[in-house]
């Protein structure tokens, strides 16, 4: 069902109005007709822009290359078409003007944005990846970041969870920051505006880490349909122009601008449904009781730890139903996207206005994401020398995240919910009527010995708890470009980016008292604003002198970054209906108010010089000098140089013989230094602590200076060396590149702990070193056979990271966390985030095997074990199994390999797209499995427990015997072993699309210039050996990467797309 909110229509009318404004009526004139053809083939050219010079009157050629236009008889027609030379043809009183256009060889060179300026791709000497935009836009993701998965070499994109509105994490060539800043996003520049975004994440929901505002790329606020190109600056030589902000890499986004021609309106519609993947196989009510009986024996009444419901079930099974909670919580969800744009251009310049609306319901109950975008860009040729242009973009999104579920994700609550529990919650239950459904209360906390205590109905959370996250983003930019003399241009560019998050969380009265929620009827409201502005003054020079090509850039850049937040909390309001903090009755003791601001500034000088000789030898120098307000004056300034060189061997004389086979061959190498300011917003300064004290009721102010500080904290430095080969075979039908990079990030800002005896606390130091090196490969193949065209693109990245020097190892293995134990450890000299676990060696199948499993003294290692128990490996050989001694390296949590494969085919009017994306070499700790495969607690069990080992009935099973609560003390009841660690390799198919473009002859009659329909399947299947619902478990952070904590799973989507242009 397609529903447009009337409020959204308001913007629609605004658009219509704006369109009307731009397509000013032209005065009555002569009609000019003609045909436009390709001068080389004499074939008609379709879609050529024609414009009457000095007016906004324009048209485009039809499928036969014909055009008709009103023009004064002394006018001039301006023709433009991509790939052809722009032509100016005087009409000279003719009424029929046939024109043949010449191919523009220089335009065939792909131009890419490299930061402040653009350059022909073949002149680039550093490591820059461009996104395959066709595949990127087709994926129709809410956040364009997601569609970059597998589309950009060297870029690692991973989801934290798949709940609608969740932001993605992006790393370029691996992580290079110490613990806290591991997932700091790369620098993102959109049309010259430095953007960033914020996301509110409630880790408490999943790992008890509390809620936080997280920095994101900001790309989630951009409508993917507005994006023209995305470039990623990967090595330091490329990114040095961004100096101190570029250590995590740079992503440059260029949005679409208007093309010369009459107004062109495009409407794009996508709608469809998202369906949940099947959930894990958990027990139904009958099986649940059966498992209980396997654990405690047929007669459950004697067992201590059995819920009353199980006993009631045995009395009268007919009172009980069985519910599949995964199906109750996860449902098909509708999604729709509407985009509309109008664009055009002429002598005066060009314009483009677009708007978009996305509405995505989540498959998990209560989750939803909506976004509205509007974007306007224009460029004006004020005179031959002066050009002024602007970008203005606003977006608003609203996210309703998963309901808070007491330290457990909704996914986990769904799969572990006992199957006899009715979704309707409290049922009437006259005590004497045994035929009535059992009374099972939601939210009842009866204390430790009440088996029903832990049952909480996930559907009730939705009633009790709600959260709206509204995210507003504004991007604005205005530039003036002035050509001082030929080839020398001055550009002044001002930009502003602002992100506001408004968060509102409400709780209501619960159906039963719940001790974790002492704050019922509460409202928490926070507003966070992050903004930055910058002013670039750039002087650029471009010229060719025969075989010498020179290009230079010098500039001065000023930036300011601001952050402001205010947050309030009140609870115990009189009424559930209270919706603002001013509501009556709040208890003053719960009231909390906080707020803070932060500001920092950067002053920079940028410089770049490029020289190319005869298209064979190229060299680029980059330099940036940054001064930051976040460092003390004495260490404020940092210099960030980069140099890179290229040699196009295939342009050498001696290569001419080889050119038929190897059409292109280039070697390039570069080196550079980048910086990162990873300390606080302000330079470390000695501060006063306010510690008042009440002397017998008289409050007296107390102030004291804190411990020592290190004022000389300065830039972290990241040095990268990069070597690349570019090649093309058979007239570039096969093309590709191979790169090797080596990056060292040192002077990492880390915290040094001051001993308590010296006053305690921490002091910052510039210590620490992280090394990354790796290889990247890109391969492309295109072929046309008659009307059948196809192209295949493959990319792969391998990154090895070594924590050469880190502040301290992070060793866990002690107390398990609330639901999933600590299994990740971090050691100096090793890769980040490794799993260290006790390894197992199957089950004991006989007493003899138990007796044979002995330590150095010959004593059995697991003396209490019984046949059917797990055999643990005594790694340190001390004859006992302990978490301290027997954990060993079991696999890495971060994938070293990242790869994508994109296939596109065209046959006549049909097109077909299929993308693959994969991660290899990583392991995943299967948290949900760890929880539901234990014969432990009252939550539901995996159906696998039915297949548990039993010496008589099931002696061949590999699933350990049901030993509830480790009654027989087989060492430990809940060890985090490698039984739950699985290989996480996967290949996903983010998109399969079949499209059909209607013939122009048919549609042009009804005034439509193009019409395409397509059917899209997203995430149709995943190839993996992983036994959980989704092997892609890219959580942020170092100690939780690779742990499947049951976050919102992905859906399988079936979508219909319509794209129509007028």
């Amino acid at each position, binding site marked *: 069902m397609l529903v447009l909110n009337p409020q959204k229509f308001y913007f629609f009318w605004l658009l219509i109005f704006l369109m009307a404004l731009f397509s000013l009526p032209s005065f009555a004139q002569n009609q000019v007709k003609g045909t436009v053809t390709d001068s080389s083939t004499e074939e008609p050219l379709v879609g050529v822009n024609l414009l009457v010079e000095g007016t906004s009157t324009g048209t485009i050629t039809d499928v036969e290359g014909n055009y008709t236009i009103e023009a004064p008889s002394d006018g001039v027609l301006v023709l433009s078409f991509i790939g052809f030379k722009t032509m100016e043809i005087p009409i000279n009183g003719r009424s029929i003007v046939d024109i043949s256009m010449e191919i523009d060889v220089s335009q065939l060179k792909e131009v890419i944005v490299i930061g402040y300026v653009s350059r022909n791709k073949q002149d680039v000497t550093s490591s820059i990846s461009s996104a395959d935009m066709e595949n990127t836009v087709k994926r129709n993701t809410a956040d364009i970041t997601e569609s970059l998965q597998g589309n950009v070499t060297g870029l690692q994109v991973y989801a934290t969870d798949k709940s609608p509105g969740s932001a993605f994490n992006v790393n370029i060539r691996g992580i290079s920051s110490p613990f806290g800043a591991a997932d700091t996003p790369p620098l993102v520049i959109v049309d010259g505006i430095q953007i960033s975004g914020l996301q509110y994440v409630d880790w408490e929901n999943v790992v008890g880490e509390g809620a936080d505002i997280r920095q994101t790329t900001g790309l989630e606020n951009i409508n993917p349909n507005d994006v023209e190109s995305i470039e990623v600056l990967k090595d330091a030589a490329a990114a040095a122009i961004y100096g101190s902000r570029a250590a995590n890499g740079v992503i440059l986004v260029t949005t679409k601008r208007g093309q010369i021609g009459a107004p062109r309106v495009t409407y794009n519609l996508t709608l469809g449904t998202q369906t949940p993947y099947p959930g894990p196989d958990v027990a139904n009510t009958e099986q649940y009781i059966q498992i209980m009986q396997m654990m405690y024996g047929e007669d459950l009444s004697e067992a201590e730890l059995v819920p009353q419901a199980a006993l009631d079930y045995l009395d009268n099974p007919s009172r009980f139903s069985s519910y599949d909670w995964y199906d109750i919580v996860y449902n098909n969800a509708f999604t729709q996207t509407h985009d509309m744009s109008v664009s055009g251009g002429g002598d005066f310049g060009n314009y483009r206005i677009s708007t978009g609306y996305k509405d995505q319901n989540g498959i998990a109950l209560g989750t939803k994401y909506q976004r509205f975008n509007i974007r306007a860009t224009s460029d004006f040729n004020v005179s031959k020398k002066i050009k002024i242009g602007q970008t203005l973009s606003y977006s608003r999104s609203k996210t309703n995240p998963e309901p808070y579920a007491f330290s457990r994700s909704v996914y986990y609550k769904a799969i572990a919910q006992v199957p006899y529990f009715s979704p309707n919650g409290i049922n009437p239950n006259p005590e004497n009527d045994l035929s009535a459904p059992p009374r099972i209360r939601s939210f009842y906390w009866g204390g430790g010995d009440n088996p029903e205590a832990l049952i909480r109905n996930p559907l009730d959370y939705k009633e009790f708890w709600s959260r709206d996250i509204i995210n507003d983003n504004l991007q604005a930019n205005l530039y003036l470009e002035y050509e001082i003399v030929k080839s020398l241009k001055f550009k002044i560019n001002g930009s502003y980016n602002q992100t506001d998050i408004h968060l509102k969380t409400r709780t209501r009265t619960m159906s039963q008292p719940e001790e974790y929620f002492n704050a019922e009827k509460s409202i928490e409201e926070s507003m966070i604003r992050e903004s930055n502005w910058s002013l670039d003054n750039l002087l650029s020079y471009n010229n060719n002198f025969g075989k010498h090509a020179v290009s230079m850039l010098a500039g001065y850049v000023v930036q300011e970054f601001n952050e402001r937040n205010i947050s309030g909390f009140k609870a115990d309001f009189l009424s559930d209906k209270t919706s603002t903090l001013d509501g009556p009755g709040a208890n003053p*003791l719960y009231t909390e108010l906080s707020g803070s601001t932060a500001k920092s500034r950067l002053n920079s000088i940028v410089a770049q010089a490029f020289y190319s000789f005869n298209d064979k030898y190229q060299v680029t120098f980059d330099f940036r000098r940054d001064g930051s307000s976040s460092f003390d004056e004495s260490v404020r300034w940092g210099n960030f140089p980069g140099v890179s060189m290229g040699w196009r061997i295939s342009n050498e004389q001696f290569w001419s013989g080889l050119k038929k086979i190897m059409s292109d061959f280039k070697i390039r190498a570069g080196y550079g230094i980048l910086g990162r300011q990873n300390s606080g917003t302000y330079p470390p300064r000695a501060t006063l602590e306010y510690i*008042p004290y009440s*002397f*017998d009721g008289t409050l007296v102010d*107390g102030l004291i200076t804190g411990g020592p500080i290190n004022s000389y904290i300065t830039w972290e430095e990241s040095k990268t060396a990069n070597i690349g080969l570019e090649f093309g075979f058979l007239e570039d039908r096969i093309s590709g590149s191979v790169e090797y990079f080596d990056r060292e990030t040192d002077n990492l800002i880390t915290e040094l702990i001051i001993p*308590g005896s010296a006053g305690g606390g921490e002091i910052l130091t510039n210590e620490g070193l992280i090394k990354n090196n790796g290889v990247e490969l890109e391969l492309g193949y295109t072929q046309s056979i008659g009307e059948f065209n196809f192209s295949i693109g493959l990319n792969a990245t391998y990154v090895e990271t070594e924590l050469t020097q880190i502040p301290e190892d992070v060793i866990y293995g002690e107390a398990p966390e609330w639901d999933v134990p600590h299994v990740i450890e971090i050691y100096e000299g090793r890769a980040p985030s490794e799993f260290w676990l006790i390894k197992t060696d199957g089950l004991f199948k006989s007493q003899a095997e138990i007796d044979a499993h002995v330590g150095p003294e010959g004593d059995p290692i697991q003396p209490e074990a019984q046949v059917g128990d797990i055999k643990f490996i005594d790694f340190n050989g001390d004859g006992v199994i302990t978490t301290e001694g027997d954990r060993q390296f079991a696999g890495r949590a971060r994938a070293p390999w990242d790869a994508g494969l994109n296939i596109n085919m065209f046959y006549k009017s049909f097109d077909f797209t299929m993308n693959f994306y994969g991660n290899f070499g990583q392991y995943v700790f299967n948290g949900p499995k760890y929880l539901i495969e234990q014969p432990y607690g009252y939550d539901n069990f995996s159906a696998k427990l039915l297949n548990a080992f039993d010496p008589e009935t099931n002696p061949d099973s590999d699933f350990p015997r049901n030993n509830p609560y480790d009654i027989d003390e087989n060492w430990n009841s809940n060890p985090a072993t490698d039984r739950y660690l699985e290989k996480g390799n996967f290949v996903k198919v983010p998109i399969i699309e079949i499209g059909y473009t209607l013939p122009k002859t048919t549609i042009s009659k009804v005034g439509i210039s193009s019409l395409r329909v397509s059917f899209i399947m997203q995430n149709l299947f995943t190839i993996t050996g992983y036994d959980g619902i989704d092997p892609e478990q890219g959580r942020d952070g170092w100690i939780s990467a690779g742990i499947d904590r049951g976050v919102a799973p992905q859906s399988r989507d079936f979508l219909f797309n319509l794209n129509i242009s007028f």
Partner: protein
Amino acid sequence: MKKYNKICVVTLLLLISACSKDFLELTDPNVLTTGNFWSSSEDVEFAVVTLYPIFNSVWDGAPEASNLRSDAVALAATDFAHFNQYYTFVNTPVNGVSDEFWYNAYTTIFRANTILKEMESIEFKDSGQKDLLTAEVLFFRGAAYFRLAHMYGLVPIVLEPAESEEEFNNPKAETLEEVWDQAITDLQAAKAGLPEDHDLIGRVTKGAVMGFLGKLYLYRAGYLGDNSYYALAANELKEIIDLGKYGLVEEWNDNFTSENENNEESLYEAQYDVFPGSYDETQPRPGNASVPGISGEIVSKPSEWIFVEMTKELDIDGEMDIRLLHTLYFDGGLPLYGVDFVDLGDALVCGSGDGGDGGDGGDGDIECWEEDLTGEEGFWVEIVEEEEPGAEITEVLLYGCWDPATGDEFEHIIVTIDKGCRLRFDAWEEELLVNGCDVSSDGGNFDGWFRKYLPVDLNCYLDGPAVNNERILRYADVLLMYAEALVMSGGSLTDAADVVNQIRQRANLTEMIFADNNELMEEIEHQRIMEFVMEGTRYYDLIRWGTLVETLEAHGFPDGASNIDFDKHKYFPIPLGEVNSNESLDQNPLWE
């Protein structure tokens, strides 16, 4: 020429945005920077105030840690693994329960050192004020070193504030004595400089310093086995008595409520307070009492032994010792907020009683009643005859409660017998629930909770923190320490007996005559128990007397006792974080 003009315009534009140095000079508006702090005597006054809250947590900051290891305490819950380890003496340096003392003591010392150093360059208009503040600061530093000396043994002595990385790694002192000596030096200087009274109630006075000094001498004698310090302790404590400033309050419970704070019995008191509307600026007391529904997570409850110990002696009127009644909440004891002890587990939820009227709550509250069955025949007579042959029943009371919310109803009967203890019966099941007389029954049967330090009004933990001051050093302790010092140093036994009887007299007990030193010492120990349950002294008393293992074993803690290695457990492990961060410091070898 025209061209050059244009270039100039462009250059100008560049210069407009080129900014002065100030552009990059930003200061954090969210914090107070030191600025010109440490320029006047006022700043020193501000700084000295900050010693109070941190010092309070040196002596009281972790009530669980300071009270858990004692024969008065049983663990109420086993799911706090680190408390369990600590309680059963199987903790390792990783455990961390005792670490707060270390960190808080050194924070106190760091602040004191900073103030002392900064004071040197500040001009005081009134040199008397400078001496006074110096003395006050030295008290905190000395008392912090005293704490470190007896809790950790060999520790670093730091007398200057660390200002750079080179000064972070302080090595341990050479000998144990050095640490104690440092504490004595500081405290003696403080004593010399402080007045007997201070305008601001709650600030350190000479009496407080003398109290700590006396206590230090007594501890040093025990901890280092140097008996010469008993005489010093006796002298010091006698001086306090001679001041005539302090005395025992008439109502014993006035030492624990928010009603009668900073009274004549109090030498040093941690001030706790709450100011409505500025929650962050308050100093709520940390949890200590242990009644479910009132004080958050319940870690500890009274042991069987402490109940027996405290019921040993009835007062002059044949009533239970007032100190028992105010220390423990138990079946047959005083009601709490109008609610008699019942088996409801967490019956005492917020608002379940309305204070003092016998427990008739409003709608939805628990309703309770009481009936006198003395003289009536009943099943209890048979059971009493069986359990306590020859005992006379003096009183029979029936208590009942009903919780309308759950429909749960309880009735039980308390039978008091002439042997001085009470038996509790379930009125419906007709069985004996607890035998208060029989000490040989296995621990844990006693059902009750600690009530000492509970707020006067039912002020549930969740609704707001308790504000009653913690009496860190009170006159009763001075008297009993004095008596002990006299006995141990061979001083006047008459004087010793006299102060012990002062304590007894306040508790409405008969005057005692002591046959010998041992009897006197036994009574001192007994009175220390009666007075100071949950006041953080028992564990250290047992250590300085060297009787930890035997005592725990005899009092029903054989498991815990068997894990004790006295030399090792005499001191706590140095916090793991400290050993890791301080390159010059190794763990206490016994704890490695």
